[in-house]
């Protein structure tokens, strides 16, 4: 039985989100505990139209002041029980305020356990490192392999992105250090695990290979989108198809002007063509 009282050994920045399953099929937020500077807000769960059997919980991750001051440490644990659905969001970019020196690091460490048939959608706003900030974060996802044949693995949709700072103030990748690590482990019920994905980016001003700006080649934002599991399979397929359909670099468009003749273009193609035009007009990667 869980203790209804606040434990006295609370550690700053620690948080736990435990989405439990009330048999037979009602998910319930069993625990949402947090300590300054972390704050968690959970609105009432909703049902979606295409999956009416599943109650989807949402939790907002907040930090006081909208970001992390040098030396802040956040340690969040998320536990999803089988068949539960959780969306984690933020209410704006996570600001990283300046640090007195490269030796004072702020950290964010998140561990998420994803049970079979459950799904996690973690779509935060971008991290915004200010000038002279110093930050490292690590996200570890443990995906439990299904033991019974009827079960499917959990699903994961995770975005991790960072921008170049406050552009209006002339900041352009001008922090001391930014590190972000995403790891996905497949775990067996008996505790053994194997690494499926490690995406570890480290940008440090003191690495002697020129400034970070020169290494970013005019990019203003950089991110990783991770899609895993049966629930996001079709979304993953969509992305792969869109990448395949990107215009060839240095190719000639011999069939220009054919759009008006062809009446049977479907909506997806029109949308894609519009996006390509917009991308080339704004000079995205070309």
């Amino acid at each position: 039985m869980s203790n209804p009282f606040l434990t006295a050994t609370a550690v700053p920045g620690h948080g736990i989100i435990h989405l439990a399953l009330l048999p037979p099929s009602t998910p319930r937020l069993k625990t949402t505990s947090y300590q300054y500077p972390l704050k968690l807000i959970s609105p009432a769960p909703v049902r979606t139209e295409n999956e009416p059997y599943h109650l989807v919980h949402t939790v907002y991750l907040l930090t006081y002041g909208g970001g992390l001051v040098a030396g802040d440490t956040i340690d969040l644990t998320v536990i999803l029980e089988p068949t539960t659905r959780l969306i984690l969001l933020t209410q704006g970019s996570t600001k990283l305020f300046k640090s007195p020196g490269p030796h004072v690091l702020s950290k964010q460490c998140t561990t998420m356990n994803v049970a079979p048939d459950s799904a996690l959608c973690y779509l935060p706003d971008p991290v915004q490192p200010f000038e002279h900030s110093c930050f490292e974060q690590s996200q570890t996802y443990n995906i439990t392999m299904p033991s019974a044949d009827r079960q499917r693995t959990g699903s994961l949709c995770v975005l991790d992105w960072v921008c170049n700072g406050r552009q209006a103030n002339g900041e352009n990748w001008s922090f001391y250090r930014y590190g972000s690590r995403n790891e996905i482990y497949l775990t067996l019920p008996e505790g053994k695990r194997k690494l499926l994905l490690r995406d570890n980016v480290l940008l440090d001003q003191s690495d002697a290979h020129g400034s970070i700006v020169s290494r970013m080649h005019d990019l203003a934002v950089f991110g990783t989108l991770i899609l895993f599991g049966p629930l996001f399979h079709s979304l993953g397929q969509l992305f792969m198809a869109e990448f395949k359909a990107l215009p060839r670099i240095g190719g000639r468009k011999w069939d220009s002007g054919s759009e008006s003749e062809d009446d049977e273009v479907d909506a997806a193609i029109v949308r894609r063509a519009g996006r390509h035009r917009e991308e080339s007009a704004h000079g995205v990667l070309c």
Partner: protein
Amino acid sequence: MTATPSPSLHALLLLSDSALPLGSFAFSSGLESFLAHNKTRHSTSSSKTRAFETFLEHSLANVASTALPYVLAAYHDDPTLDRLEELDNDFDASTPCTVARRASTTQGRALLAIWERALSTSVSPSPDSQAAAKVLSAFATASKTSKPDVYGLQINAHFPPLFGLTCRALALSEAETAYLFLLNHAKALLSAGVRASVLGPYQSQAVLASARLQECIKTCIKLQDGRQVEDASVTAPVMDLWMGRHELLYSRIFNS
């Protein structure tokens, strides 16, 4: 008669030879794609050369931070088949870019083939090298009959860990191994640069011989000194972007 050269010299020359049939020269590590993306920006040949030199340094730094820890871990960890398979899997997990993954496994498999057909007969007699050789041969056999394990993952035969263990089997020193690995990468890039007509063959040799390149390689090695494979990281994220988008080039001279 002068003193005989160190026993590892022969192996060092073999592994640094561009005639070693690894197929490294079929790949441009994103160079071709980088040039295609920056065509308008670098129109004159001198600005092209400067852009190439920056690319070379960033690419070396990125290869050092992502792959070198795996080379060295395979080199100095106790050689066992389990450890090599673990390094192989973890490197695969840490290389999200499909083009980079294909380039790495192609060269890894080529190295295994060279190992089985040529190098395995000339292993140094020290027990250290013998143990490494045994694991390499076992891995080569296992990679041919690889079945998905309980997690659904297979042996990939990535290049960096296999290169590290090969160097150990041929009794190269750790410093030689690290330097050789990065120099070979620089050579492959320079050769790609010549074929993509960014710089001429003499210019390319000049870069290769320059103190600047030597300094760059040494700095890269020093920065990675003592870094565990768990902390191997991408330090120039755009490299993955160039490499991945190589597939989108309308015409290309390198594999992707």
